[in-house]
């Protein structure tokens, strides 16, 4: 049995002081490997989406990828049970969605805009979700999903169906500047909801550097002001992410209220696939945060003796087949037919108005 120390600084919140270092236990192996498998799949799916976008023709609208953020995203999603817990993924949460259990086909179908997908061509890409199964479908307005996830948890507690379920959602460094994020987080704190908020500080909001976004030293410094527990983690380090989110989710489930996990990392790509990110200075590209979390994780797993290179290659091949299979299915499916669309924005069809004028 091997032990390894990873650097997780868990910042003291209002009431609880966490130990600043956490040792890697053997019982992390399972979670770690499951997450590693997810981030490999996520990267391969996203590479496919990127190349479909560049090829043109099939994907409509933009493509927004999570390259470099997979470890942080998946380590959160891995703590969620599909159909039980509530998840509000954001822009760069493909890896989290996979870890959570969202079917690959949901992604592919939504990007291709086919009617078999959860959004039926009505909305696209990262806006997909199945709210009644616990997967919220984000609107574009940053910050506004937090209160929705909080509300779902609130309703469960009210109706007595909360049990050990938990909610999770994400935000970027840029999204923390929205009023919606502040209101939602404050309300969740007041209601002491079992909610884990991942703050993916990827150094940029589109092109805007963090120096134009906030003036604090570390976004985790905000936790105390909300009276919630906060963690700061190296977002490129899957082991650290798995350990931190494990603690955060356990504490959320145990009734300690919202948990804010801030991951430091770098967006390894453009804001969307249309963007070459030429504004990211070379200096940023050479910092620790610019490490590719997947390479780091593979090495961690191999060093720990948890997996071999050959096994990883097998996973990669399997992932490619899964992605190809999803694409093969979705690309044969029909796109929406405007003449079959009901154009009903209300579920109460008697109250839908006809055309007037």
């Amino acid at each position, binding site marked *: 049995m091997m032990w390894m120390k990873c650097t997780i600084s868990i910042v003291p919140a209002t009431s609880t002081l966490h130990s600043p270092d956490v040792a890697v236990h053997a019982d992390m192996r399972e979670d770690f490997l499951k997450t590693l498998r997810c981030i490999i799949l996520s990267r391969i799916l996203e590479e496919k989406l990127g190349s479909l976008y560049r090829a043109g023709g099939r994907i409509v609208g933009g493509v927004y990828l999570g390259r470099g953020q997979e470890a942080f995203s998946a380590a959160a999603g891995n703590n969620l049970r599909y159909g039980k817990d509530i998840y509000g993924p954001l822009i760069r949460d493909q890896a989290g969605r996979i870890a959570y259990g969202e079917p690959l086909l949901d992604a592919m179908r939504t990007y291709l805009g086919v009617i078999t997908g959860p959004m039926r061509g009505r909305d696209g890409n990262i806006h997909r979700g199945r709210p009644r199964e616990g997967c919220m479908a984000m609107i574009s307005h940053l910050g506004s999903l937090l209160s929705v996830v909080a509300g779902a948890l609130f309703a469960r507690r009210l109706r007595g169906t909360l049990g050990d379920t938990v909610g999770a959602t994400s935000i970027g460094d840029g999204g923390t500047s929205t009023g919606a994020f502040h209101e939602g987080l404050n309300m969740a704190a007041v209601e002491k909801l079992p909610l884990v908020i991942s703050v993916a500080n990827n150094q940029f909001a589109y092109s805007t550097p963090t120096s134009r976004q906030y003036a604090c030293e570390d976004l985790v410094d905000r936790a105390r002001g909300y009276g919630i527990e906060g963690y700061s983690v190296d977002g490129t380090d899957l082991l650290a992410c798995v350990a931190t989110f494990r603690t955060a989710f356990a504490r959320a489930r145990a009734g300690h209220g919202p948990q804010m996990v801030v991951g430091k990392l770098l967006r390894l790509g453009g804001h969307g696939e249309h963007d070459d990110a030429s504004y990211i200075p070379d200096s940023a590209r050479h910092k620790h945060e610019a490490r590719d979390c997947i390479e780091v994780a593979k090495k961690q797993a191999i060093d720990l003796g948890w997996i071999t290179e050959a096994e990883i290659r097998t996973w990669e091949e399997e992932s490619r087949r899964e992605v190809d299979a999803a694409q093969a299915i979705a690309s044969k499916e029909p796109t929406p037919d405007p003449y079959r669309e009901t154009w009903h924005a209300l*579920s109460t069809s008697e*109250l839908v108005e006809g055309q007037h004028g």
Partner: protein
Amino acid sequence: MSITYLEAIREAQYEALRSDPNVFLYGQDISTFGGAFKATKNLSREFPGRVFDSPISEDAMIGMAVGAAIEGARPIIEMQFADFSSVGFNQIVNQAATLYWRTNTPCPITIRMPSGGTAGSGPFHSQSMESIYAHYPGIVILTPATVEDAYWMLLESVKLNDPVIFCEHKFLYYHLKSEGFGEALPIGKARIARPGRDATVVAYSAMLHEALKSAEELQMDGYQVEVVDLRSVKPMDTDTILASVSRTGRLLAVGESFPWGGVTAEIIARVSSEAFHMLDAPPMRLNSKDTPIPYHPNLWKTHRPTTSSITAALRTLLRY
């Protein structure tokens, strides 16, 4: 036993809480205090754990209601004043109103908005926002003008599987009384509040009562003015309006919100397009003036339509 419009709103919430455990109330100062207007008086005592004081966070209040609705709850959210919904605007029009269409998930939330002007309330405690919300797909906008509608339509709102903006008029809270709740009329249907054959006034909410007084005044001059109570601004019951105009040939639309666009423009556009040849005179409308709502009663009385300005407009219309 006479019941006010405000009491009807309290009673409807009482009944909603009583009959469905999924209903809860969330809003500023609505718990032990019973709300700024006392529309939730005693409800927190009668339904412990189901009436919550909210932080001053309109955006999050609506967002949380949407999340709760997804999980099967049926929240009633009180805005302290309709005017403050401007900071919850995005969650209403983009989150709540798009949920069903985007994801096939019903969004049964009711947002109560104490609306409209009262003397001395000024630009930010007097607004009527029905015209703004009705512009957006995916929301139902109700504007009760009677004690009966206040009661039944609020109860219906909570049962509806869609977001409802419930515009309750503050001017009617204490003034308007009734002997009981009467019968429920269906949501989405207008009502002939007073029959007549010379002209049709379409009004809603507090303006209904100004229009009725005006019709009364004009009766002394021998005019029979028909008054239609819109009840629901969206959907708008075009059929009832057209049927009335087909009888009278004359139309005046009256609303309290700002003059550009909005309810009265929509009424006139529908009637002009769909019943052009039934009109014996150009359709008219009356709204508030095109400035913020004034604080001083002298100005306020002139800013909004009143019985006298409605009567004046009707005289022009009837003489045409």
